């Protein structure tokens, strides 16, 4: 990342050069021809060399990747020839890297060809530039745009390299690799990512909804989920009905319980967290403990008070077995 920043500043430097005298600009170009790295090679490349060069440059592509693009961008800021087309190419290349390696190779080759063309264009340009001083202002604006783009590119590149460790910080890039025989255009990749996401969520749902794990097929699963949600909703309806029928007394009880519970919270909550629920139910422990807290109540309230924290704060299933069997039957008739 630091290296890239260095490159970017260099690009900026060149940009400033564009506003300077022609002589200095030419010197900058010269510097560039002697730039260490593969760009100096590219001026001497003929057709046969390209493949070997690609092999050397493209081997550890993901690691070097950010590097190379920024090199290219620095170059762009120097040569104001075919800037726009190049930038398009870089964008495409980025996509290719995400999608498939073969595509990357193709893109790389294409880029190399473009590079060679540009080398030729540079020499032509140098003569032309002497006459065209007025155009420089336009081009410098273009370069500013390019610089912005380069920064964006840097971001994406760093993202790409960090992809190995942290999978995705930004969500607008889809990190999916196409397997053999799968389509590689961006639409199909996005669609595949979406489908994978859905199936993953469906797996969670399968774990959550009882009896859903035996069903295969999306339609059946959706059916089961709908049924489950509706049964839960009906259960809530039924429970509130049942609560309403016993409510005149119960509401007061609940109020009392909670008024006391807030006061004696440390007393009641501590053993609950330590001991499993069935232990507490089977031993006479909670009654004794609650007795000490609720001495001034009548026995009916005591029972409610003692049962409530138990069943509410744990799963409630174990407590129901102990307390009431015919209510349990009612629930089972409801379908859950």
């Amino acid at each position: 990342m630091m290296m890239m920043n260095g490159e970017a500043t260099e690009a900026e430097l060149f940009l400033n050069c564009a506003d300077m005298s022609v002589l200095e600009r030419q010197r900058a170009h010269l510097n560039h021809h002697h730039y260490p790295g593969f760009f100096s090679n590219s001026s001497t490349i003929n057709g046969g060399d390209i493949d070997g060069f690609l092999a050397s440059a493209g081997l550890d592509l993901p690691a070097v990747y950010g590097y190379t693009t920024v090199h290219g961008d620095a170059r762009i800021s120097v040569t104001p020839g075919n800037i726009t087309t190049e930038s398009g190419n870089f964008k495409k290349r980025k996509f290719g890297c995400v999608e498939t390696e073969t595509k990357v190779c193709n893109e790389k080759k294409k880029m190399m060809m473009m590079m060679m063309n540009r080398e030729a264009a540079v020499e032509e340009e140098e003569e032309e530039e002497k006459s065209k001083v007025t155009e420089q202002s336009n081009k410098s604006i273009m370069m500013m745009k390019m610089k912005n783009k380069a920064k964006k590119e840097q971001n994406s590149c760093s993202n790409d390299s960090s992809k190995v460790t942290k999978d995705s910080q930004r969500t607008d890039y889809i990190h999916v690799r196409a397997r053999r025989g799968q389509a590689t255009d961006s639409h199909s990749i996005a669609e595949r990512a979406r489908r994978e996401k859905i199936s993953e969520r469906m797996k969670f749902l399968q774990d959550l909804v009882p009896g859903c794990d035996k069903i295969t097929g999306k339609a059946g699963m959706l059916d089961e989920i709908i049924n489950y949600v509706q049964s839960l909703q009906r259960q809530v309806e039924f429970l509130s009905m049942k609560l309403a029928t016993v409510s005149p007394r119960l509401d007061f009880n609940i109020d009392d319980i909670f008024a006391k519970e807030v006061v004696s919270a440390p007393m009641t909550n501590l053993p609950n967290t330590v001991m499993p629920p069935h232990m507490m139910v089977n031993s006479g422990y909670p009654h004794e403990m609650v007795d000490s807290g609720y001495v001034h109540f009548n026995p009916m309230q005591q029972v409610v008070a003692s049962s409530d924290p138990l069943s509410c704060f744990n799963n409630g299933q174990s407590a129901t077995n102990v307390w009431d069997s015919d209510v349990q039957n009612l629930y089972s008739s409801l379908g859950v």
Partner: protein
Amino acid sequence: MQPTSSMNKEFLKKWQMGLQIFRPSIDNTSVSERKRAIKLSADVAMASLRKGTTCWSRALIQKTASEDNFLVRQMLSGIKEETLINKKLPKVMCHRKIVRRSKKILMRRKSRSAMEEVAAKAKKLVKRKTQGLRNAVPGGEFMSNNVLLIQETLDYIVSLQTQVNVMRSIVDAAAAGIER
């Protein structure tokens, strides 16, 4: 994602708050009225656990507010009101050209093989079921895509399980109290 004990506790606290709001009026009313009060307060308590971060909770609160605005206002005094409003989805504009083209494609599709026919049928079935799920989950029509819908369904189911667990335990406690 199982309903945790802390969620149960939180729900119980909220519900208790809602019931307390109803308490003055609850004594001398009919059973159905009482039931409605209990149901509404339980729903709002469940929805307020999410603090307006999920679609279904916002939709549920909106629905309850249309029935009993006072209760909702009392119970949700801590949460900002803007967070509880579902934004309507932008209406999909159909370009005339696109519609015509898709019609053409549909016409072309009529001549297809048996395999494709079956696949299309399965797709249709899934689509219908998804619509059913949308109707079952509150606020389903606001969820823009299927991924979001399923995510919200997950969350909704967990919350419903919490609600049912707590309510059942209280009913059990009450029933035990009667038996004594």
